[in-house]
């Protein structure tokens, strides 16, 4: 085990996969000479050269499409979006091309591509730069979507994503880039499509992913002091979605809460609620509730931003609301 930062774990994943497979290359804005807008790709240009670490102009639709074409003929591109907000410009390539090539070609062409970058709110970057993209992309058959919350998963999921024969979208988080955590030595792979129980408890099952895990765990400590022990499931993969551990936990607790940064309307949380009520209906003592970001575009003002994103406090209140049934 070694302690790394989240951004370093991502960088290691990219470097190791580029070392082992010449088909893997990295492309995006400021990934090379500038060393990455958030320093995830620091040193990679020096190490792998400009053939494999490709700086692009601001052309998201263009370079996403270049990635798709290269992937169709056997390369394994890692396409960085400076943030997922800019993927809106490349929506057509991800949705109409990457996701559909295999089906439309009757299985003749694969699209083994990774799209990655920070998702969700950073700090006070306003309405256009603070959005959660999981609801948009998990909606699409043909795409896989992962959202690592821990440093070890950042490395292990990204490596699995690069080796996957499908388009995989890796939702990172700017607020997690500096996070420190232990990473197993060696070729650390985390399979896509497996959630993890990260805390055990008998009161409420909390299902979450991404940076919200770091709101949920402190909330659990506060509740534990009152004798309320919550189980916590980190989904890690949002599509495919593994609710096995969550359902097993709900069989014990009879209560569940989903915590997400994303807006409430539709989305991954709603999908989780639907599956729990269908597959664990008999065990439930009350409705499955959700703590979500508020249903509005992100305000710039710091105080309002804090009120818009779920906090430790709103998670605690969410658990109490679930227990009140």
């Amino acid at each position, binding site marked *: 085990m070694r302690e790394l930062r989240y951004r370093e774990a991502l960088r290691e994943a990219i470097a190791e996969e580029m070392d082992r497979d010449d088909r893997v290359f990295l492309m995006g804005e400021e990934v090379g000479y*500038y060393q990455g807008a958030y320093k995830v790709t620091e040193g990679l240009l020096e190490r792998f050269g400009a053939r494999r670490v490709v700086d692009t102009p*601001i052309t*998201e639709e263009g370079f996403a499409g270049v990635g798709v074409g290269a992937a169709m003929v056997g390369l394994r591109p890692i396409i960085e979006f400076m943030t997922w907000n800019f993927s809106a410009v490349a929506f057509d390539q991800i949705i109409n091309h990457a996701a559909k090539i295999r089906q439309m070609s009757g299985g003749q062409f694969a699209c083994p591509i990774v799209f990655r970058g920070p998702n969700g709110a950073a700090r006070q970057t*306003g309405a256009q730069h603070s959005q959660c993209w999981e609801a948009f992309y998990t909606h699409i058959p043909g795409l896989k979507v992962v959202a690592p919350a821990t440093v070890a998963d950042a490395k292990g999921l990204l490596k699995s994503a690069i080796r996957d024969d499908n388009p995989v979208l890796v939702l990172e988080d700017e607020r997690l880039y500096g996070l420190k955590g232990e990473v197993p030595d060696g070729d650390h792979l985390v399979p896509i499509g497996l959630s993890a129980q990260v805390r055990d408890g008998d009161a409420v099952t909390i299902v979450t992913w991404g940076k919200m895990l770091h709101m949920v765990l402190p909330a659990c400590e506060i509740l534990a002091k009152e004798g309320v022990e919550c189980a916590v499931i980190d989904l890690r993969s949002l599509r495919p979605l593994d609710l096995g551990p969550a359902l097993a936990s709900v069989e014990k607790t009879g209560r569940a809460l989903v915590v997400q940064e994303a807006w409430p309307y539709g989305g991954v949380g709603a999908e989780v609620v639907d599956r729990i009520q269908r597959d664990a209906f008999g065990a439930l003592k009350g409705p499955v509730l959700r703590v979500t970001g508020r249903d509005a575009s992100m*305000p710039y003002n710091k105080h309002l931003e804090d009120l818009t994103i779920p906090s430790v406090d709103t998670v605690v209140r969410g658990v109490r609301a679930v227990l009140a049934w």
Partner: protein
Amino acid sequence: MAAPADELLGLYRQMLLIRRFEEAAAKAYSQGKIGGFLHLYIGQEASAVGALANLNAGDAIVGTYRDHGIALARGMSARACMAELYGKVTGCSKGLGGSMHFFDAERRMLGGDGIVGGHVAVAAGVAFASKYRDRREVTLCFLGEGSVSIGGFHEALSLAALWDLPLVVIVENNEYSMGTPLSRTLAVHDTSQKAHGYGMASDRFGTSDVLEVKRRVGEAVARARETSKPTLIEVQTYRYRGHSMSDPGKYRTADEVELRKKTDPIVKAEADLRALGVGDADIARIEAEVEAEVEDASRFAEESAEPGEELIEAFTYA
């Protein structure tokens, strides 16, 4: 004072206001009073000031996240702009927008857009509306040279030329797109060439002389107003500060920046004013006025109230 001195004095004052305003904003940012992204315009002032000097009240402006200069040049108050940076309810977007999203409906300032390229099409839409209503209004749209490869820009130019929209698109070529010099984002160095394929007029000039900027943009504005034809302009300029406050600027040398400061538009305007007979006392008076205005704006921003929680959802729908 002679008339030319009067005109230049006004433009000089506006440029100085932008510079002092942003110096104060940079300081407040380093003190944690301003958050998020802060993209400074310092060095590029003559572009906004010269260009906007051609506009009438009914004309419109659409800009990027680097929008403080165009906002102040449009006559938005330093108070409303600084308060927006502080995220206060008295700000030009009520503290909901921040540095990248300055708006002012009364002055027809339509942002402050943070996603590169799409706003050029929005600007074409504003110009479309002017033509639709048969009003002789012009829309001015700004973007950076690093943004001329994106689809939104090209689709907008194509439509503006096809439909003869009264639009002037100004590419501010400050030589860098974040840390990437123009030579690594484009196969040509002259972004105004992009106009040719669309059959629209173009122009290209530097920003060291604010009066020259005014005159040249004025030709394009007149073309839009009189004949409803769009123009693409590249202004050659330079930003002295980083892309945003978090940019360490390792991609260029300090010598390069110092060299470029030698053609500073404010320094030149001041020298030209002196040559026109404006004395120390007049310059000193303007400097004092501008400093007082910025201090007042900072105080106003500090003392203003935060927006209330009820504003989070208040503007989601009409």
